[in-house]
């Protein structure tokens, strides 16, 4: 496979060139050079991925690199799909990044360190799926963590929250690495080899206990990278604080590698995991989907909302992967292949529309400097193109027909509904609940993105910054345009991914024949009487629209549409402060899910000095804390700091104590020897 190999080498070369130019060139030239190199790198990754998912396989072994281990690379259909997704996102976001980093507000993003780290981060995103040995995978995994940490800390000088987010991100990512290192090292030890081929060969000989431990450790590590609930606190901190083009890359490409890891290790290398393991994955996915979208519904910070929505979408992906594993482990490969195909399609869909959402959010932040939805408004009139792109992406995110999110959720529901043919108590209980979770998260997602779009972009500006907003420069619009084309392409012509998905599923050891086929315009599930042609649905909708417009045109009186004041109940023109903000929009939902969210509200009244009855000022403050983080992480942090404080007594500085340690150590050892240990 000459093509894929040259593409990979080209990618590495461009990354190196990008990093050097990022570090050395002056500011203007640096941003453009890095943008072009990263875009080229994304293109190379995309071509390599498409070639691989088209059936090509290549592998490379570089013994010289990475002492005591050597670097192994290999690409097959599964890694090809993820490389293609990562490459596409990197390409579009790099083009967008040129405009974004050029602005005067982006002093942090355009600094040398960040611009040098950006191409390296993009390279790791493209290369992680190509790793083919434990050491190479961990090397690329940690390199991705380090470069993304540098990028998250781009604006660390301006805000303390960025620094705190950076520390949380570094420690949580290292927790993930420790779990992954333990799991993969145990796997390599049991399988007696380090390369993935050796792991595949040795996997059958593993004891169920070892297999279960490896699965739990590795799944936990990858779930934390995908932002699944118990290990998610870094996601709603790192994504909003990172520059928007970086959070687009992280949300659209990096979190997918969490899902890739679980599929690669559990399906391909381990050759299937225990049933309880898959139930765990499914449960984690479901919990993250609901909890993520609930927190998104409550968030009034636009980028925090999008970060929690990433957690929800990855939850849906893991529901698909968990269901596929469940069906496969009870010996039904057909529904398993379908569920896995649905999960992989949702990864692709989510990557494209989430990247576009973050890019649009980035251009809003660039134009207004605001992230708080409550103070935005009226941006549609001032930034029509960005509002248009945000609408296209929101349509994908709310998973309704003309959007691309609908297809993967439809496929996921089909696989779960038809999964009931698999016997067993667990499926009978788990599948309906999974369908209910998907439905609830889809419904809440609709509410979230109506809030984001309606409150953020429509009606009148609620702050001076929003009123002074201007449209983004063409560079950013072209980047967003590319992603919008991707969204509509995936929405209307899903069939083009069809055979790529089937091959990826076959690599995971599930599919014998093609699970879903389609002549480009239609998605037909072969073994089930279900098919979906999104193009026809869109055509029917436009026809209906034109018919209704024609109905009005014919019957209504000729004459222009008059502009009229909004109805003001006779009390004077409605001001911008009267319109609904994100917090008020979410108030009914918050009241419905009150016990889950446990909002903290405090009112403090400052009476006048003279008399307690006269009130000088009343301050109301309401905050929706991340409950799981409070319930799980706060005690742990308190315990650790307590341990640290009490441990200071171990080093009180007295020479007697220090020598006493030595003396008791000596006496203890001698006693052990005397007793004849």
């Amino acid at each position, binding site marked *: 496979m000459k093509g894929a190999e040259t593409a990979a080498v080209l990618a590495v070369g461009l990354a190196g060139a990008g990093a050097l130019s990022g570090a050395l060139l002056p500011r203007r030239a640096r941003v453009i050079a890095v943008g072009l190199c990263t875009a080229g790198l994304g293109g190379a990754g995309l071509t390599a991925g498409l070639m691989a998912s088209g059936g090509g396989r290549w592998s490379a072994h570089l013994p*010289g*690199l*990475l*002492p*005591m*281990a050597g670097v192994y690379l290999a690409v097959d259909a599964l890694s090809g799909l993820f490389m293609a997704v990562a490459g596409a996102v990197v390409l579009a976001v790099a083009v967008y990044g040129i405009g974004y980093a050029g602005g005067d507000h982006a002093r942090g993003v355009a600094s040398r*360190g960040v611009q040098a780290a950006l191409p390296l981060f993009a390279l790791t995103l493209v290369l992680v799926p190509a790793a083919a040995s*434990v*050491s190479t995978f*961990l*090397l690329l995994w*940690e*390199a991705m*963590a*380090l470069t993304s940490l540098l990028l998250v*800390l781009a604006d*660390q*000088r*301006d805000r*303390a929250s960025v*620094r705190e987010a*950076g*520390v949380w991100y*570094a*420690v949580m990512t*290292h*927790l993930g690495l*420790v779990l992954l*290192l*333990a799991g993969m*090292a*145990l796997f*390599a*030890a049991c399988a007696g080899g*380090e390369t993935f081929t050796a792991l595949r060969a040795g996997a059958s000989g593993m004891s169920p206990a070892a297999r279960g431990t490896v699965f739990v450790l590795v799944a936990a590590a990858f779930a934390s990278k995908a932002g699944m609930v118990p290990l998610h606190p870094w996601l709603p901190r790192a994504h909003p604080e990172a520059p928007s083009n970086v959070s687009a890359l992280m949300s659209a490409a990096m979190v997918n590698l969490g899902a890739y890891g679980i599929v690669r290790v559990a399906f391909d290398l381990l050759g299937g995991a225990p049933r309880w393991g898959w139930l765990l994955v499914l449960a984690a996915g479901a919990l993250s989907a609901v909890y993520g979208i609930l927190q998104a519904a409550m968030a009034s910070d636009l980028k925090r909302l999008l970060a929690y929505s990433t957690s929800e979408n990855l939850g849906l992906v893991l529901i698909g992967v968990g269901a596929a594993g469940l069906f496969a482990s009870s010996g039904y490969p057909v529904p398993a292949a379908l569920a896995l195909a649905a999960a992989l399609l949702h990864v692709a869909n989510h990557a494209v529309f989430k990247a576009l959402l973050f890019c649009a959010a980035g251009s809003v932040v660039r134009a207004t400097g605001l992230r708080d939805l409550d103070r935005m408004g009226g941006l549609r009139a001032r930034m029509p193109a960005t509002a248009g792109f945000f609408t296209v992406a929101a349509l994908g995110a709310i998973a309704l027909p003309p959007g691309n999110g609908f297809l993967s959720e439809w496929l996921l529901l089909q696989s779960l509904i038809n999964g009931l043919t698999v016997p067993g108590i667990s499926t009978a209980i788990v599948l309906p609940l999974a369908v209910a979770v998907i439905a609830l998260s889809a419904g809440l997602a609709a509410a979230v993105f109506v809030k984001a779009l309606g409150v953020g972009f429509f009606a009148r500006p609620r702050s001076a910054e929003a009123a002074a907003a201007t449209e983004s420069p063409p560079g950013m619009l072209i980047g967003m345009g590319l992603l919008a084309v991707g969204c509509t392409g995936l929405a209307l012509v899903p069939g083009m991914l069809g055979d790529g998905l089937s091959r990826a599923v076959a690599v995971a050891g599930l599919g014998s024949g093609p699970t879903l086929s389609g002549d480009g315009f239609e998605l037909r599930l072969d073994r089930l009487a279900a098919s979906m042609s999104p193009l026809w649905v869109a055509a029917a909708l436009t026809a209906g629209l034109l018919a209704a417009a024609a109905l009005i045109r014919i019957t209504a009186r000729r004459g222009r549409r008059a502009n009229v004041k909004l109805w003001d109940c006779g009390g004077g023109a409605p001001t911008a402060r009267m319109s609904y903000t994100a917090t008020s929009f979410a108030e009914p939902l918050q009241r419905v899910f009150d016990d889950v969210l446990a909002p903290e509200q405090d009112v403090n009244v400052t009476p006048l000095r003279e008399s307690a009855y006269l009130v000088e000022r009343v301050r109301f403050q309401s905050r929706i804390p991340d409950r799981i983080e409070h319930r799980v992480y706060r005690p742990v942090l308190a315990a*650790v*700091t307590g*341990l*640290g*404080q009490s*441990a*200071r007594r*171990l*080093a009180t*500085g007295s*020479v007697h*104590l*220090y*020598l006493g*340690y*030595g003396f*008791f*150590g*000596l006496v203890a*050892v*001698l006693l052990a*020897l005397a007793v004849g240990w």
Partner: protein
Amino acid sequence: MTHATTALLLTAPIAVPLATSAAHAATGLRGVRPYRRAHAPRHSAALAHRPPPPRTPAEPARTTGSTAAAGGPATLTGGPPAAPPGPPPFATDGPPAAPPFATGTDTAARPLGTWLGLVSPATILFCGAALAATVPDRGPVTAYGRLLRADALTVWLLLAVGAVAALACAANPSHLAHERADAGAARRYNLLVHAFLAAMSAAVLAANLGVLWIAIEATTIVTAFLVGHRRTRASVEAAWKYVVICSAGIALAFLGTVLIYYAARQAGISEASALDWPTLAAHADRLDPAVTRLAMSLIVLGFGAKAGLAPLHAWLPDAHSQAPAPVSALMSGVLLSVAFAGLLRYKVIADAALGTGYTRTLLAGAALLTLALAAVLLLAQRDYKRMLAYSSMEHMSLIALGTAIGTPLAVSAALLHIAGHGLAKTVAFCASGHILRIRRTARIGRVRGLLAEAPALGTTFGLAVVALLGLPPFSLFASELGLARAGFTAGHGKVVAVALVLTLVSFAALVTRTARMVLGPPPEPEAVADGPVRLGAAAAAPLVAGLVAAAALGVATGPLTRLLSAAGEIIGRH
């Protein structure tokens, strides 16, 4: 490689540093003393100033009685008057006015000091490289009737000593310049540093276990004065603790050596070669198990003390935080590993005599205990130099864990870890020296926005800590990865898992502290108005070189691969 050249290659690393330190001593004696310090009336000067240079530094002459006490009691200077409980604000020398008696001669010594300082590390590196070309293929070489010997392990350590020494000696001039030390102190400092290098090279090259012990005890004695170089209360306290605890520990190790000697004599090995390592390693199976078991326990306790392992570890944070930056870099970077290499020699003997079980349990126990102590004490750490010292303890326990696992892969990983940690820790300590100079405080809480105020210094310090955290592309990542893989493959999964969790705890502690220091806006915005604090090319060069070397080692060991696996074979053969 004729016998003469090997003899030269083996003696040069010891002889040249000794010659350099003698040269410094000579300039001290010959130097014109233009003044005779009038014996000012003895009263405790209110504001302590730098005590006048002591008598000629050639030989720590027998100071007579108390009258010649150096300077009045150095009261606390600098730092806020209401010193909070807990570690005292760093008693810097205070901004000493240029000592009235700055002699004219020291400016002449300045250029002499810079390139003279680099001669000995260059020799060590050159000899190491020359030996590295031959030893892995043709086997060990000996000289002076089996007194000095170089096998793959020795060569690897020589290279590590040379590299770290090169960085530290390159950082010496800028450190001394900024300390505005007067000529006598600077001369005494250089003399001791080169003696220190000579002692370390001797310890590494020694084939006789007795000579090994003597060399390591010599390092303690030489560094005692280096730790106490600043003459403040804290450095005297640190020096005292360092000498007492290390000497007690090393004495136990000598008892262990004596018992090994006794067992060897009872096993019929002739008196001349009873302490010679190769013969001992060859005939170790004939040693009496009970005596060897007792001896090995004492040696792990003794050499463990010098290598920073529990239970006699407590001197390390005090000594490394009070010593001048290049010295603590040398001590943390490579002295701990040289002492640990001594322990490795004994491990080979004990494994042959007792089987690998005993030493593994001892070493793994000491390693986990030290790792736990370091992690817990890092959690609430408030002084960044002590933080770096505890990080050295953490890395030394990982190295001990690697050797405890014992397979060739594990030992190679441990050796690579020694080299990587040496380089990264040297850069970190030298950078911390500059931070101390710029911000005049060692408290983490009072250092803010380093990247904003001094970008070059902040970047190098940040990257050094990134390397210490075990992140790619630095070699500590590759070695920790190798360690974990070897541990699990050798069946010690649980021990390695516990170690990984403890490294996570210290990772978290290190990240929170370094982030607080390095990130953030500049402390006084107007201070940065006139441009950030420049570090200067001379001071930045060693730091950048160290980071580049650590990264290169992490990407590929290249020519050293053969040497590393050979060294791994020696220790982890069985």
